[in-house]
């Protein structure tokens, strides 16, 4: 029996003339994500993507698992391919649905006939398939209101398909359709979630990570690589830029008022990230900031930080509670890594009492007096780049 995967598209079907571009990107993303699982024929018709494995021993479980991580897909399902012929549909339905129905007690059959040349109308088709299934699995009862298993028979242009239930996809828009943006990633819980959320809106990502050896260890960087690797399951490959910030931080410690360390550091990060964004033709910055979570994320502090950014800053977590963020991080599989206990550069030289309402004028003044520009240039020049991919 031939089995394929059918995918229903998300809000991109609402796009006008751009729709083809969106579809092309989605198909490219699906192909990339399925690499290593064998050869597939992938085509799109009637708002449905058909994924047809060309070899019989393709691991469709794994295919489905991966499809479940691609943005731009609302629902997907496995389906058995039949000829557009009632006898073939009936005999395959009996075989194919058996596994799904064996331990169920109620079911119903739904039919959709988009090819109106098919002689049976939808209710007739449902009735025949339902009858056949009752014959095969006599323990079953029909329940049209709340069935345990819904068997769907679709008669479409290329053939007829039988499915037993659909799975929710990630939703969102295909990665790349919104452009490229740069995420500032620390190793905490929030920034990977922010990266995931913006990739969901169609952004391809690159990442900037700051490290301060010997205050931070190689393990902190490996942790970030692990986080990005997990995010790349959804977002595709991510170019990670690691910027050494030791000298900048040491100089700040020596030359700046302690209570401004955090806000000054955030501003340096924004400046460097903006430069990297410009060099990589990325159009925005992404941070995991959430209003009021820590001293550097008060409205006043964010104003000061924002002033140092040369691009629009996306802060998808700004209105979320920590627990809501944690829930997403668990769901996308970054939580366990995020809580590994390594110093990151934000916790190096933290002031005892950081200013929660910094004033931009004084912050800029402190920044000028510290004469950090040359060191920032040096940090950018010493940046290393690594591609992270799942």
């Amino acid at each position: 029996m031939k089995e394929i995967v059918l995918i229903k598209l998300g809000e991109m079907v609402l796009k006008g003339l751009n729709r083809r571009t969106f579809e092309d990107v989605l198909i490219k993303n699906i192909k990339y994500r399925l690499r290593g699982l064998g050869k597939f024929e992938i085509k799109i018709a009637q708002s449905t993507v058909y994924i047809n494995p060309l070899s019989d021993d393709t691991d469709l479980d794994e295919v489905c698992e991966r499809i479940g991580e691609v943005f731009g897909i609302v629902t997907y399902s496995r389906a058995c391919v039949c000829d557009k012929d009632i006898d073939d549909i009936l005999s395959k339905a009996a075989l194919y649905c058996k596994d799904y129905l064996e331990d169920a007690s109620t079911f119903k059959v739904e039919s959709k006939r988009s090819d109106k040349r098919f002689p049976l109308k939808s209710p007739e088709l449902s009735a025949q398939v339902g009858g056949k299934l009752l014959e095969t699995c006599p323990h079953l009862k029909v329940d049209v209101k709340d069935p345990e298993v819904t068997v769907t028979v679709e008669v479409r242009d290329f053939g007829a398909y039988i499915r037993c239930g659909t799975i929710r996809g990630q939703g969102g828009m295909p990665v790349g359709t919104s452009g490229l943006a740069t995420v500032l990633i620390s190793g905490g819980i929030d920034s990977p979630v922010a990266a995931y959320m913006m990739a969901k809106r169609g952004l391809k990502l690159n990442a900037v990570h700051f490290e301060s050896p010997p205050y931070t260890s190689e393990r902190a960087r490996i942790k970030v690589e692990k986080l990005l690797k997990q995010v790349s399951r959804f977002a595709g490959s991510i170019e990670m830029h690691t910027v050494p910030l030791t000298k900048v931080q040491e100089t700040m410690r020596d030359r700046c008022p302690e209570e401004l360390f955090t806000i000054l550091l955030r501003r340096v990060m924004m400046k460097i990230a903006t430069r990297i964004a410009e060099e990589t033709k990325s159009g925005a910055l992404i941070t995991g900031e959430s209003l009021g979570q820590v001293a550097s994320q008060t409205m006043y502090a964010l104003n000061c930080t924002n002033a140092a950014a040369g691009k629009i800053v996306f802060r998808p977590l700004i209105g979320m509670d920590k627990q809501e963020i944690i829930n997403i991080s668990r769901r996308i599989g970054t939580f366990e890594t995020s809580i590994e206990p390594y110093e990151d550069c934000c916790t190096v030289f933290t002031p005892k009492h950081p200013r929660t309402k910094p004033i931009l004028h004084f912050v800029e003044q402190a920044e000028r007096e510290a004469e950090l520009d040359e060191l920032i240039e040096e940090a950018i020049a010493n940046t290393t780049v690594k591609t992270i991919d799942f």
Partner: protein
Amino acid sequence: MMETHYLDNSATTAVCKAAAEKALYMMTENYGNPSSLHKMGIRAEEEVENAREIIAGSLSVDAKDIIFTSGGTEGNNTVLFGAAQALRRRGDRIIISAVEHPSVYESAGRLKELGYDVQYAPVSTDGKIDIEALKNLLTDKTILVSVMTVNNETGAIQPIERIAKLVHKCCPEALFHTDAVQAYCKMPLKPKKWGADLMTVSAHKVHGAKGSGALYISDKARITPLLYGGEQQHKRRPGTESSPLIAAFGAAVAEADITKTTEYIRELNTYAVSKLSELDGVSINSPTDALPYIINISVEGIRSETILHHLESFGVYVSSSSACAKGKRSYVLAAMGLTDSRVDSSIRISFSKYNTRDDIDALISGLESGIRSLQRR
């Protein structure tokens, strides 16, 4: 010197070259503590994590859901005692099949002594669990069900997916565990898809080293750890990871090619079964749809140990029931309804990819001479 015909691969296997080389490298060069903050630690940790990825990949699960253990016994003990403790408030019934390995069977026995309501699901004559009987044992007090994937004595394969789904349907709060030690790398295992919350595997049955194994713990399964003492493996199994054995485990699994090897073993099995059935007084106890790696037979009128030692004198090594229960009568075969005399004369032949037809020919001639000289009718 006499040639060795090792047909006891379900007891343990030879360590493959790649695994042995990896262990040596980890012991003599990359010997840092995987938890050390410095480079030496990081390099060792990379090997451990790489092995974790390989083992996770072989089970189609996430690496974060794999913990390394000291082997099958620790894995099974962790599950039984860990689940029993973690879910004590929800209920006290624990169900295992009547043919589990002693590391499950006796852990359950200990839990019974501690006041848990332990129930045993019977098997039918084909060694498969009686689904209806299991259904009747499931109550809302059930917290854990443990059914092995492949029986260590007969090779009988349990319909794990079906059992797991049944358990989850009847007892949504209960955990389902499967001891897959004998199945690992010998058939496709997909705990996540099947709905198994926990799965135990071991390294030394798949050409890794003794003292090493892994446990799959799904996201939703929260079990109390057996050991305390450090941050390793997210506190689920503290203690410095045995990086040489773990890395060797990874190397052995990376080398395993289930499809190819199973095909080869199936050929050996067919050959062996055809030769065995020509022998007078030999009956096959393994079900016909068993895992081809294991053939359990009885040689009429000769006690297991006698025939075992007789074969040994031919350089042929087999096992009398499970090696963990030397000298005890097999409760597994008894549970399948075999007569006492057949149980007492049973031996287990088990293959690995290193076996050839020569080994089977040696076995057959050993059996032939045994039947001639030892059989008492």
